């Protein structure tokens, strides 16, 4: 009797504690998806009948395929570059313990403070041959005019550079932290077996932080799929219209705010959201990242 009363009390207390977050979850996690689903099959300016035709209309939009291709190219560059550079840099950082380790880490997180509009400003100056600190390097590459860089074909590289610049440092520090969790005994055993620093890094450390790298890769993929701010701001400032509707999210934004086609915009957002949800489910159920956190089946 006493036990069931205390467990009922615990249930009540737990529910009260969980309630504020649950309200936010329902209001701003679940409701927007339901509302967007309803909107996406409602009547639209191009399709008064509504229904699933809205999804077909978005895919058939002349801007859709180019935007999809841009995002695919962006992801094919961005995700591998992030994973490789972050792995290598965090492994290298891990080999230099001592007083220079902390200052190095601090410099690496500096760029993370320059996001959004700041990043666009910085990159405009870094890439403009007449203003850049890398002027001589740019000239050596034969680049003397801004428009040699800011052109359609090279935009994916520029946006990758921007996103990489903002995100890489933080991830290097985070993965360096992951490396600290490897037990010293394991590394010592490898050293006794005669493994050199390169072998320890490649054969021991890297496999041990693999799941953190996979987790990062999926997070980076999901975020990259939604690329918006950089092309949007470049298009609205430095080179007007150069990256208009460059990414899928920009197209979604334009459908809602320029074309007055909220249904189409909601349809496109939902398609992107579904991809992200699938990515999330893959991490949760198909990787061992959340093992032992109470998510897996008992």
């Amino acid at each position, binding site marked *: 009797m006493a036990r069931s009363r205390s467990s009922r009390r615990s249930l009540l207390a737990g529910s009260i504690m969980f309630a504020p977050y649950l309200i936010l979850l329902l209001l701003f996690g679940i409701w927007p998806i339901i509302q967007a689903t309803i909107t996406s099959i409602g009547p639209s300016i191009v399709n008064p009948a509504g229904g699933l035709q809205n999804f077909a209309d978005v895919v058939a939009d002349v801007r859709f395929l180019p935007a999809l291709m841009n995002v695919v190219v962006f992801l094919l560059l961005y995700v591998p570059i992030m994973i490789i550079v972050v792995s290598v840099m965090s492994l290298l950082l891990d080999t230099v313990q001592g007083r220079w380790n902390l200052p190095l880490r601090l410099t690496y997180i500096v760029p993370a403070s320059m996001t959004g509009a700041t990043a666009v400003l910085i990159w405009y*100056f870094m890439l403009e041959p007449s203003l850049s600190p890398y002027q001589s390097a740019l000239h050596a590459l034969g680049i003397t005019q801004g428009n040699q860089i800011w052109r359609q074909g090279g935009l994916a590289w520029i946006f990758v550079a921007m996103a990489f610049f903002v995100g890489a440092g933080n991830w290097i520090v985070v993965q360096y932290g992951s490396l600290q969790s490897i037990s010293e005994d394991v590394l010592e055993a490898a050293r006794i077996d005669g493994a050199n620093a390169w072998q320890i890094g490649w054969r021991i450390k890297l496999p041990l932080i693999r799941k953190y790298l996979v987790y990062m890769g999926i997070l980076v993929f999901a975020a990259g799929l939604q690329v918006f701010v950089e092309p949007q701001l470049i298009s609205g400032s430095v080179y007007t219209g150069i990256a208009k509707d460059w990414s899928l999210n920009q197209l979604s934004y334009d459908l809602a705010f320029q074309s007055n086609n909220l249904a189409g915009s909601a349809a496109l957002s939902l398609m992107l959201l579904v991809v992200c949800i699938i990515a999330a489910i893959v991490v949760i159920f198909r990787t061992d990242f959340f093992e032992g956190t109470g998510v897996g089946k008992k």
Partner: protein
Amino acid sequence: MTTESIVLPGRGEGIVRTRGLGAVTGRVVVWIVLAVFGILSIIPMIWLILAPSKTGQQLNDNPPFSFGSFEQYGATWNNLLSQNDGIILKWMANSVTYTASIVVISCVTAVLAGYALAATTLPFKRVLLIITLIAMIIPPVALVVPLFVEISAIGLYDNPVSVILTSSFYPFGVFLAYIYFSTSIPTELYEAAKVDGAGEFTTFFRIALPLSKGLFGMLAFFSFSAAWVNYFLPYVLLQSQENFNLSVGLGFLFTSSPALNPLNGAQQSLIGRPEIALASLFLAIPILIVFIASSRLLVRGVLAGAVKS
């Protein structure tokens, strides 16, 4: 020496090599790579700090890392203030208010929910946890258009409350708190308190909360860094200039002034490149200070600490 005898011949050769000249070369290469990456990381920040010390003309003509004058910082600031009767101050104040509200609401709700998941007999725990994980992995940008649809429907468009509430939804924080309360604090501690007759709330406030300073620090850090630079969501949910945060305001200066494109905006605007750089600096510096102050938190390994292998 004995160690070399037990490895394969090929590897043994490798060891001999790396212990000689190769090892030294290897160290030098590692240091060069690490140092170059560090220099590349701080060059833009140095540029950004120097830029507002110069006039627009000097920014174009002088070397990128030249210093203008301290007086010019003041002149640049005054130009920035001239924009729309000092709306920059309003944007800064908005950023502070929004961010503070978001940090408080998101951290408090996350700690409570994390504790409820870890230590109470909440029903449907596994489902709630999985939904929280999915929400945590989906980038917030993915929900911007759906949130816009919802916020317009309930009449909160262009109302700062919409930005504060939507940004306070913090599944990552709930997950961190859940992991913290279920691994870092021994469950025996809660059990003991309950055996002594303490209710859930007493246990939470007397036992769990006093042990959660590190957790609060980490939650506040992530919540702050996301909220302070939040761009897309407020950009979509807010319309009036006086409601913008600094991030959206900066984007507005970008696209409305002739600073970066002479075709844009009023030609007589005082907003040039140094002014934009100064506004960017105001956006970047608080984040930088918080990052540097919290570097100890990050070092311990956010992922490794949160998810024990």
